[in-house]
């Protein structure tokens, strides 16, 4: 099988790797580059747990051909924290109990980051729209939405 050289930036550092033709980005990140933070959930683009940012846009890495990220910038949860300092989203997810089994969390965090990078003061509806492609089977959506809103620095003010 022919191999293609691909060069891109992963969480700010430059990477180069030979990939099989047709290999998906998720496999290349996990097996090829050892970044295990994006997870495999369905392989069909329905669950969202493999979400990564490609040039700031949330993308499903299981459906992205690895060759297409040539020269682009890829961000995963592995690069979210600044050294030992967690990203505000990570802190709020921790404080707000916004994860149970944790398997959807990497995708949720990347979808949320894509939103907050563009819109620092989103409404609840905008948050729900932003994570609408991410499935949480433990169904902790409320606490996830709350955590994202808190991370955006907005008081939730949710009526009981």
């Amino acid at each position: 099988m022919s191999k293609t050289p691909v060069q891109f930036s992963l969480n700010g550092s430059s990477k180069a790797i030979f990939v099989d033709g047709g290999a998906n980005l998720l496999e290349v990140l996990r097996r090829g580059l050892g970044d295990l933070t994006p997870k495999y959930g369905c392989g069909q683009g329905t669950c969202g747990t493999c979400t990564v940012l490609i040039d700031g846009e949330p993308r499903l890495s299981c459906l992205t051909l690895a060759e297409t990220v040539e020269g682009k910038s890829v961000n995963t949860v592995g690069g979210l924290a600044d050294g030992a300092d967690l990203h505000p989203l990570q802190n709020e997810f921790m404080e707000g109990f916004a994860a149970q089994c944790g398997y959807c969390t990497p995708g949720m965090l990347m979808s949320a980051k894509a939103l907050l990078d563009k819109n620092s003061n989103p409404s609840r509806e905008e948050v729900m729209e932003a994570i609408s492609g991410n499935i949480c089977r433990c169904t902790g959506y409320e606490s996830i939405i709350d955590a994202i809103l808190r991370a955006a620095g907005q008081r939730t003010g949710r009526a009981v």
Partner: protein
Amino acid sequence: MSSIEFRKDLFADERDDDLKEIGKPTIRQDILGHVTGRSPYYDDHLFDGLLHLKCLRSPHHHAKIRSIDTGEAERMPGVKRIIKPQDVPHNLNTLLSLINFGRDDEAMLQGNKVSYIGEPVVAVVAETELQARKAVKAVRVEYEVLPHVLDPEEAMKPEAPVVNEVYPNNTFDYHELYDHQKLRFGDTERAFQAADNIVEGRYQLSPIEQAPTETCGAIAAPETNDRYVCYTGTQALFFSLGTTAKLLDMASSRLHFVGGTVGGGFGGKVDSLHEPLAVLGAHLTGQPVKYVFDRQEEMQVGAPRGAERWYIKDGVMNDGQIVARQFTGVFDAGAYSRLSPYAIIKATGHLPGPYTIPNVSSNVYCVYTNRTPATAMRGFGITAVDFSIEAHMDKVATHLGMNPIELRIRNSYRDGDMKAHRRLAKNTALIECCQVAAQKAGVRLSPEFANDSSLKGGGIGSRIEIPETVTDDVGKIGDRRRSNTPIHPFEGAGHKGKVAAGTRGEQVIAAPAQDHEMVIEPGRDGYRGPSNGSGPLPPDETQPSAPMEPQSQPPVVQTPLPATQSPQPPQIAQTPTPAPQPEPYKPDKLFDRGLKRPGASRFISGSRRR
């Protein structure tokens, strides 16, 4: 969450502990790993030379396997090994055999007859997943399609095809005596005759797939010390370990299982389907092997919550008092037992719901059909019958023209009441729940019900008594299929006798241990048997024990076997002719490592704490 109210005041006099945690946010101990993406799920372990395992699965509901031809697949690029049914050292198991419950009925790879769509036949181990998938397609299996049955009530008819050869009547054998689990409390038939109204209902729930985000799977690899490490997403690590040891005829000391980080399970990851096959693949190839369901397999083959059908018949007085309740339950176990027979034991212990009803009877069937085998899911065994009971309560209320909340309070169990499984109700709070629900829903209750309490009125008079109980012997193993008896228990039920009021039931007798190592000897921690050392007393129907004095009720004896937690009504006390029981599984020879003490269990090896 703010939408939840904690009403600890309802239990203030029953629980003096205050952990000062409930109702307050807390930080999960594992959440740092979750938010940094570093929690080690089974697939987050990298191995050089990882091989991929894929199964050829049955395309038919029910078919005899005539031949398997793997010749072409074996020559395909990247294929390392094709695992056939005869490669599995001990290719027959049932999940709960580890606790002596049920007979072995399921092969890891099926070589004779497939009984549901997706049943694995052969497994291909190849260098890449794509190569494994292609090789699976190249395996030729010749099937002889057999008639199939998908509805449990159809499966119980005499003409229905036999789904599971180990249970040729298509029903699980309870206590080696009946084709269903019985519960008898009082005399429902007589109470129906005296009741003002009879209300009947039929309720049904479909199977539900747990659909965890992380699909079921495992990675196994040879370790340098002649052991196998297995990273797995199982919810039941020791089930998986014991099942692997049994299926592979391998000492458990050679298995190093690592789990505990589960990407969502909800009950669907207890069946131990992946670990044995992954370890066998690693054993046969000498390389790390990953066996994982893809999403389609997860939905088609992953065991769901089973379908259930319940028939409920109530005898109700005009004032709303329910005087008798009869259940007929049908569980669709799918093709193999897994956890369904045990779910029925749970369901029966739950009847008749949170209500005090003086006459209760129930027959519940565990039926084999050509569907995906069912397993655990969140409260399985309880959820469907609770749904049915509460839907039926609404039906009774409609029939009587009563407020459904008041109907529930009228019949609610209260502290100290005797339940149908002959245990006292305690810490009850249905009445308080109903009152809060009525208040939230804006339903006005009459003062009689608005001021009622679970602490009042229970445990007195007939509410605490075990009534005289009528027994029958309908539904002996095999009878129903021979004579096409309807499933409804009480049609044609042969009257067997009566058990005196106050009889709590036979002495709890544990099934004989398969292995003497499992026998808890007197003097060892955990021994709860008779103190005179004469062994459990045989039940004696002619001499029912004296009615118990309520105040001197001994603490409930919890026994380790699910079978013995069941209500064991006295009518099965008669010693039956035991059905022929296949010999429990024993390895042919002692495992070649570990403990060699004479007489030691063949499943145990290495040092062991006594």
